[in-house]
């Protein structure tokens, strides 16, 4: 029973983190596409800052992934 709760906790950790991060990434990418469409000569600058911003947002999802992996691999050994 405890293992089932641990599995659910890990799934929620990565799931909710991925939900927020991908929502933000989608908004940022849509805005960047819009900017490139409006001003194609600024595509290089927009691409650079987009990659950095996406990596910063992705870090949040990665933290969720780390917590999920820790929960799965460390917690069952502790109890």
């Amino acid at each position, binding site marked *: 029973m405890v293992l089932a709760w641990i599995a659910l906790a890990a799934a929620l950790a990565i799931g909710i983190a991925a939900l927020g991060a991908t929502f933000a990434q989608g908004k940022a990418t849509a805005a960047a596409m819009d900017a490139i469409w409006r001003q194609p000569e600024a595509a290089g600058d927009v691409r650079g800052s987009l990659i950095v911003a996406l990596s910063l947002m992705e870090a949040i999802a990665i933290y969720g992934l780390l917590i999920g*992996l820790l929960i799965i691999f460390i917690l069952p050994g502790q109890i």
Partner: protein
Amino acid sequence: MTDTLLGLGAGEFHIHMPHVWFLEHTPFEISNVVFAEWLIMAVLIAIAIVVNKAVINGRFTKVRGTLELLLDFLEGWYASFIGSRKNARRFMPLLATLFLFILFSNYLGIIPTVGYAALFAPTGRWGTTLGLGVVVMIACQYVAVKDLGFVGWIKHLLHLGPLSILEEFVRPFSLSLRLFGNIFGEETLLAVIVFLAPMIAPIPIMGLSLLFGAIQAVVFTTLTSIYIGGILEHAAHAHPHHGHDEGHGHEVAHAHGH
């Protein structure tokens, strides 16, 4: 530890862990992670010697051309974050070394080596990436002291109050956790997929991890160049008119006083 969550099916799932070869249970364990780091250093030093010889002799070899193309692209990329191409050239040794080391170590985990001598991606352990992050933090402080002077460094540290000191300490953690999480997550994903479907299924994931390994190397060094670029921007704002200490300050003053 028999009832782990992933102990499903017939075989037991094992998370990819490094194994220690020599000096176990001492602070100086020689595991395959350390060996992989030494291997990467040896390869990078060998490439450096080969390219250096080609440059000294004036020969245009394939290795030299590839490296020059890569480094020129990187310099142009960092220049858009650090301010100018001259500043990017100044910090290329740090940035390009970090890039090549991270790239090689990300790709090292993909090489399928099985058995006792299996290689382990060094960036898949938090220790390695935290070391790289601390190097970046110390380099930023060194650049700040050198370009802003000691008083300017303190001012730079306190420009948002205690928040900016906190930021300096959070930076290595966010840098290192991002890199470690990506590579470790990839390796774990590969391990899970190999456990579930060992034959064809891992190949697309391996292709993806080639892409993500390169992107993570670029992102780590790009964030480093953004941090350095922030300091250089402060330096350009701090003394535009009076040269503070060495040639750099006079150069700026001269450029502004024309």
